[in-house]
């Protein structure tokens, strides 16, 4: 497959478009909230009316040559803001405009609009303000110390993926379901019948709104077709108009309709609010295959037309950077990527091999498009053929970090353990970075990263945080008070439980603010069983509800605990005083101690049980603290192990540590070993990483750097395939490969302008190397050099 001139041009336009802040949505939202129409409405109906208002008033965009239409903002990469969630101050706008990484251009005109219209109306009224005022002093202390982050402070909960149902149905059909659900309301015994009525009415409005929006596009396309002189384009515009007339009101019946159908749905979700992980077509090869096959048999679609449509569709994702983040949220997720993760392969609902022709075609699209968004992954089941894995490896080899590799059997077992039925489990996959979910039926919210090494630091300091000068944890004692290693572990466990309690208390309030003030009637249409239950997605309407807390720094804390056990308690090489003195000096003048800690102490990632036992111990403590705790939506709190970019932020709030790490340096990411300490190669890393029980998580992240020479011939592909299959046989959840050499990276750092397209694997996603902070760039270079050595 080669890209057509049309797709090449659209791709280039998308790459070159500058991320820019658009005030359109904020302005329309303000107008609506000010209007008489908005008064005296229940929360769901108000949000539905707001959604309708946005779709009625927002500017349409039809780019030259486009086959799939619709943008969140007025044009590609012109990015909306969500003042009802989080209001940007003028200072925030200045930071967004001027910061070096992940910036958004903010025109003076936009600043003026913010100053005059947006800020005066929303000041003190955004949900972020609400959340911050509702949190306890303990929560604020822990948050400020960097013990955890809060996902929902600037973005709405999302973390969900479209399932089979919506690829086979239209919104007119949903309206029927809604009216059935309304007619079944039991006002005699169901005390929530009225709330359900309001919610269902809101969903009905949202259905009409998205159909109306598609018709606006149909009208506009027909207009354009009339004026179009180019005969070919005229035909295209007419066809596009007909498609928009048909979907999403009705079920799509061919490839073009399906792509446009999904894209309207995607827009609806990200215009309604700014949910995390934007949204996602999920098991895309499975959804596309039936319509593709039908068209192939009927001869209504050539390969060229198919690639053209897919290319146009791909560009749409890349046109939509994640909405601007600031503060801690920007640190934990410093990227334009919005984590839309296309799933390929895996198994069908009946459990058989799901790899099909479209899986291979989409791998071609991924290779040829080579753009940041959407992200892509291959689900690998033991039933999937080696050829499919080889094809994925060929793309991975080119060093752009995609696709990442996931273990279908692990994903299914994780979901079965959580009580999902087998069909829903097989229809699921991973989204975001690595998060397991039942697609189309589950609301699986990430609530915040949890800084495990920070908790250890607090445990060694009687719960006191030196950096913020506050008592954050329990007063369990100082390092030298712990007479045995077990004493220390018991204190650590008490601290984890205490701080997780604070986090969960916060979660239970924060989630409720979304249920109460910010329902999402449109998103609720898409996830079963919201319509059936008459309940909003943000209020536990989905069939399955899960709240995750993501553990960060497993490799680092394992090395820290290993070092403490080895050097202080087992070998008695140092006394606590020596170690504390050295760490307090950030090892300056104590390099001999630091040397022993780094080079002469067992480390995680080498299949050494002495070290790895601490990974298991920490995992179990974290798991026990979180797993099974109820959330506010009738769901359950669970754990997963992924960092996005929070391991850099979390490292920046921790002083020098017993593993020889200097103050403020990044922590290890995911469940990968600390940078550069794995000395035995990938098999030992995999053995260490599989000692924790992945199946009791909702996802783990393992990053493995490879020099390109591991990808040189068929035998090496066979070995890599076996390596992946081995990890998955050991129940590993996910593995991703960074194939790049350090020289290239250094060059890119020096001459960023020459390496605009350099994409590397960060942690759970790929990013432009240029868009990474310098510290993260350096970290990736170090890891790569280590790999080459």
């Amino acid at each position: 497959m080669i890209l057509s001139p049309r797709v090449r041009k659209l791709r280039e336009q998308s790459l070159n478009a500058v991320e820019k802040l658009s005030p359109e949505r904020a302005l329309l939202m303000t107008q609506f909230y000010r209007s008489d129409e908005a008064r005296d409405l229940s929360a769901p109906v108000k949000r539905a009316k707001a959604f309708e208002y946005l779709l009625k008033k927002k500017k349409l965009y039809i780019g030259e040559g486009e086959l799939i239409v619709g943008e969140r903002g007025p044009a590609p990469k012109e990015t909306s803001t969500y003042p009802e969630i989080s209001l940007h101050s003028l200072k925030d706008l200045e930071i967004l405009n001027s910061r070096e990484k992940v910036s958004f251009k903010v025109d003076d005109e936009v600043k003026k609009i913010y100053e005059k219209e947006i800020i005066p109306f929303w000041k003190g009224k955004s949900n972020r303000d609400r959340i911050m005022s509702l949190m306890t002093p303990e929560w604020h202390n822990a948050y400020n110390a960097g013990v955890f982050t809060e996902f929902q402070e600037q973005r709405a909960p999302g973390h969900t993926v479209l399932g089979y149902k919506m690829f086979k149905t239209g919104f007119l059909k949903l309206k029927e379901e809604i009216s059935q659900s309304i007619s079944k309301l039991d006002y005699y015994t169901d005390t929530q019948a009225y709330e359900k009525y309001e919610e269902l009415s809101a969903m009905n409005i949202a259905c009409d709104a998205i159909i109306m929006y598609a018709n606006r596009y149909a009208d506009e396309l027909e207009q354009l077709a009339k004026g179009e002189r180019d005969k070919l384009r005229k035909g295209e515009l007419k066809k596009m108009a007909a498609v928009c007339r048909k979907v999403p009101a009705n079920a799509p019946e061919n490839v073009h309709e399906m792509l446009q159908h999904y894209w309207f749905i995607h827009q609806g979700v990200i215009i309604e609010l700014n949910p995390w992980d934007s949204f996602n077509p999920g098991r895309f090869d499975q959804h596309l295959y039936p319509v593709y096959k039908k068209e192939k048999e009927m001869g209504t679609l050539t390969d060229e037309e198919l690639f053209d449509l897919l290319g146009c569709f791909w560009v749409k994702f890349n046109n939509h950077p994640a909405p601007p983040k600031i503060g801690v949220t920007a640190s934990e997720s410093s990227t334009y990527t919005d984590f839309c993760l296309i799933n390929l392969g895996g198994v069908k609902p009946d459990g058989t091999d799901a790899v099909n022709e479209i899986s291979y075609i989409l791998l071609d699209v991924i290779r040829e498009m080579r753009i940041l968004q959407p992200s892509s992954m291959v689900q690998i089941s033991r039933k999937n053929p080696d050829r499919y894995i080889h094809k994925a490896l060929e793309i991975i080899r080119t060093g752009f970090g995609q696709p990442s590799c996931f273990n279908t059997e692990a994903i299914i077992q994780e979901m079965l353990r959580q009580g999902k039925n087998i069909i829903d489990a097989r229809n699921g996959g991973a989204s975001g970075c690595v998060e397991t979910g039942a697609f189309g039926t589950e609301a699986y919210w990430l609530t915040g990263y949890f800084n495990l090494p920070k908790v250890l630091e607090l445990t060694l300091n009687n719960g006191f945080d030196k950096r913020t000068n506050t008592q954050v944890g329990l007063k369990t004692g100082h390092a030298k008070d712990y007479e045995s290693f077990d004493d220390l572990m018991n204190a650590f466990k008490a601290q984890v439980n205490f701080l997780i309690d604070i986090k969960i208390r916060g979660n239970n309030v924060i989630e409720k603010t979304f249920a109460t003030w910010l329902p999402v009637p449109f998103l609720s249409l898409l996830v079963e069983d919201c319509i059936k239950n008459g309940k909003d997605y943000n209020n536990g309407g989905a069939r399955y509800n899960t709240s995750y807390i993501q553990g960060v720094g497993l490799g680092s804390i394992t090395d820290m605990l290993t070092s403490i056990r080895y050097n202080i308690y087992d070998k008695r090489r140092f006394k606590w005083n020596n170690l504390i003195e050295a760490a307090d000096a950030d090892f300056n003048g104590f390099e001999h101690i630091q040397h022993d800690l780094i080079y002469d102490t067992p480390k995680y990632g080498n299949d050494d049980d002495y070290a790895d036992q601490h990974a298991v111990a920490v995992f179990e403590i974290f798991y026990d603290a979180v797993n099974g705790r109820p959330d506010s939506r009738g769901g359950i709190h669970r754990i997963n192990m992924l960092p996005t970019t929070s391991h850099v932020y979390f490292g920046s709030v921790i002083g020098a540590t017993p593993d020889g790490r200097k103050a403020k340096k990044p922590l290890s990411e995911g469940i990968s070993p600390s940078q550069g300490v794995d000395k035995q190669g990938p098999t030992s890393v995999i053995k260490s990483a599989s000692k924790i029980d992945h199946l009791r998580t909702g996802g783990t992240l393992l990053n493995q750097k490879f020099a390109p020479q591991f990808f040189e011939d068929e035998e090496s592909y066979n070995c890599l395939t076996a390596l992946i299959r081995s990890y998955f046989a050991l129940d590993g959840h996910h593995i991703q490969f960074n194939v790049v050499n350090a020289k290239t990276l250094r060059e890119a750092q020096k001459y960023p302008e020459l390496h605009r397209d350099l994409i590397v694997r960060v942690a759970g996603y790929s990013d432009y190397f240029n868009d990474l902070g310098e510290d993260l760039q350096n970290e990736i270079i170090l890891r790569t050099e280590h790999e080459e050595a």
Partner: protein
Amino acid sequence: MKGLIFSVKRYSIHDGPGIRVTFFMKGCPLSCWWCHNPEGLNPQPEIVEMTEKVGDKEFIKKEEAGSYYAVNEIIDILEKERIFISQSNGGVTFSGGEPMLQQEFLLEALKACKANGYHTAVDTSGYSQIENYKTIIPYTDLFLFDLKHLDDAKHYQFTSVSNTLILRNFKLILDSGKDTHVRIPIVPGFNDDREHLNELKSFLLKVKTENLKKICLLPYHKIGASKYKRFKIPYRMDGVKPPSRERMNELKNFFSETGIKVKIGG
């Protein structure tokens, strides 16, 4: 009984089929000019100095190159890698140095590996008593057999031993019916002249048996050069350039005419 091993390589993918563990045994009767494992030459443990950096500060650590392993320790290591070996149809490879120099240990290790179900490979220079090979053949699934030069004088000059014994053992192994990969280092100026290459080709055609599965052409490289300094051994290959990729492909085509599968690299 213990064997002296200077390196254990996991995820070894070029020393036989699949994912393997390669044990590099210390001590070699040859001393090839281009040897990239000079730490494998001396049959005794040696102390080497390693530089370890902490920030700007450098620490010199004395490290022993070569440790003694018991057979059960070899098996323990393999057991840790079992999942990868079984998923990839891999196994274990004994390389060196020259593993036959520790023939007794090698035999015991091979027996134990076979008893535990592992595919075994021996990477050898061919320079050992014919009786030694006869004892290990039953426990070896694959031989990686080096052929460096057919001319005895040249062979002696650049490896310090005669090739008579080597060629005889090569014949023995081919006749044993065990799978064999012949490995030919391509060393510019030593064995890559047209005349010698033609000789090699006719030789291989002549001895060719069904179990001669593969010809591996190993391009000379300089990766080992820095080790010479560390081991205080003079390096005699200064100025020799590694063969180009084009040259290697040319040679690959050339040897393919034998009808035997040819691969660049192990």
